[in-house]
């Protein structure tokens, strides 16, 4: 067996073997994380709301997601008679595949990664737009008013929040000196959340909007749009959209981990354990936000993106660029407190400025 593997290694080349193993690993990782995230979300939200959550199927209700999957597989698959059939079929796949493509570039451990693109950051921000197009298509193809409104909101949010997200990533790239994700993790002797708190805040809010988590889940806003873009979907296609939503949450948590929490680096534990621990911590933070904040209106969301996040992201980019050009060797003991102070001041000042503007404008 061992000899066979080595001969395979020499004849076919490392590439295909690594490709196969990593592809299987990434799909398994995303699927199992999605199942665990669904269970975690339902249990944690239940604790927040002082109820129990799913607790019947298996120990602690662990098998609830599997039971749901079986139920969904046996449901009737309905296609509305006026729907655009081709788009209706392909849209869930277009939405889902980019999340796997992004996971392929994430370093789980030192060297344990499917591809180390030297344009990794650009790749991630480019591919995430394709996923949004998939969600938009699934809203349009169903030929339903509510889905259409949800789809238009998706595009509006994509256009608005992409800019602050990319700007905060740009300041990250300036500070780390590379667009490769492995290099970004390797550059974080101190996690970026401490070095760039303002960038972290901007990125966090923008990624919440990109993956449609609760303060920004206008795309499917149950109480106003029934279920938004996936109203017309049922059966397996609905399951795929549901999977997309949670695998986007997995991707979001993985991106926050890689960019701002230091990726797989940490003492004592092996790298992949640190990665998973940090991923779960960021997902818990997302859940905390979800159970705390009410949903924004679409105009509030747009105001936040264009008037709130965009200037903050520009200030962040400016300050980081200044620091890297004029004081590249400044001690961390000076630069970190100064930058944290600057961030808090800028956020407070800008929030006060916006509030004053709103009073005079009466929006």
């Amino acid at each position, binding site marked *: 067996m061992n000899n066979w593997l080595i001969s395979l290694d020499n004849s076919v080349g490392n590439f295909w073997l690594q490709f196969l193993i990593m592809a299987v690993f990434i799909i398994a990782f995303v699927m199992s994380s999605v199942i665990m995230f669904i269970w975690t979300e339902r249990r944690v939200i239940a604790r927040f709301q002082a109820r129990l959550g799913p607790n019947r199927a298996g120990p602690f209700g662990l098998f609830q997601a599997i039971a749901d999957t079986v139920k969904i597989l046996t449901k009737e698959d309905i296609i509305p008679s006026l729907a655009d059939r081709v*788009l209706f079929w392909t849209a869930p796949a277009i939405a889902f595949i980019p999340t796997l493509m992004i996971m392929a570039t994430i370093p789980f451990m030192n060297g344990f990664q499917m591809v180390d693109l030297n344009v990794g950051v*650009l790749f991630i921000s*480019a591919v995430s737009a394709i996923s949004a197009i998939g969600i938009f298509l699934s809203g349009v193809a169903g030929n339903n008013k509510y889905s259409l409104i949800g789809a*238009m909101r998706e595009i509006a949010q994509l256009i608005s929040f992409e800019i602050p997200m990319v700007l905060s990533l740009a300041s990250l790239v300036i500070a780390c000196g590379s667009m490769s994700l492995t290099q970004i993790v390797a550059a974080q002797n101190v996690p970026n959340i401490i070095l760039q708190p303002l960038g972290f805040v901007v990125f966090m809010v923008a990624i919440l909007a990109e993956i449609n988590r609760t303060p920004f889940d206008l795309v499917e806003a149950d109480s106003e749009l029934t279920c938004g873009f996936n109203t017309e979907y049922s059966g397996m296609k609905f399951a795929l959209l549901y999977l997309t939503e949670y695998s986007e949450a997995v991707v979001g948590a993985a991106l926050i981990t890689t960019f701002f929490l230091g990726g797989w680096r940490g003492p004592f534990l092996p790298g992949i354990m640190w990665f998973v621990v940090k991923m779960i911590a960021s997902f818990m933070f997302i859940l905390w936000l979800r159970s705390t904040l009410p949903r924004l209106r679409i105009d509030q969301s747009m105001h936040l993106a264009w008037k709130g996040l965009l200037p903050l992201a520009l200030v962040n980019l400016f300050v980081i660029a200044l620091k890297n050009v004029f004081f590249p060797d400044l001690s961390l003991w000076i630069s970190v407190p100064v930058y944290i102070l600057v961030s808090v001041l800028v956020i407070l000042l800008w929030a006060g400025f916006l509030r004053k503007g709103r009073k005079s404008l009466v929006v």
Partner: protein
Amino acid sequence: MGSDLAFWVLAVTAVSGALMVVTMRSLFRAALGMILCFLSIAGLFITLTAEYLGMAQIFVYIGAIAILIIMATMLTRQVEHSNLPSPYKFPAIIGALAFLGVSIWVLLNTQWFLEKLPPIIQDITPVSTSTIGLILFGQEGLILAVEIAALLLVAAIIGAISVAKEK
């Protein structure tokens, strides 16, 4: 072998995407065909080891331009099952045929000397992002052109705002 296969797959999808753009009755599907075409061209760039260009292609053309076109299509009437009527069908046919004839003539009459050159595939080194950055923004780079383009874009944005502003 692998890169040949990749080239043919990407070339066929790019051409079929481009054909979808001009043949589809529904404007919305035509926009999607355009996205397919852009994606395959980005793939072609990547097989030519121009990764940065490929990513920029996806980022700019799909992430921004295609989405804007889709938005514009959604705002027009009769999106679903019609071509927008045009009174200029006959001149358009003549113009298109003339353009086709000229491009075929140019293709046939150009001296293609590529086959005499030695194959350079072996020693292509991927152009790194920092090289592109230096060419664009470096001391002897194209910084003036970049700044003029930026100025043009700012002027266009201000113009768009002043046109769209409510009176």
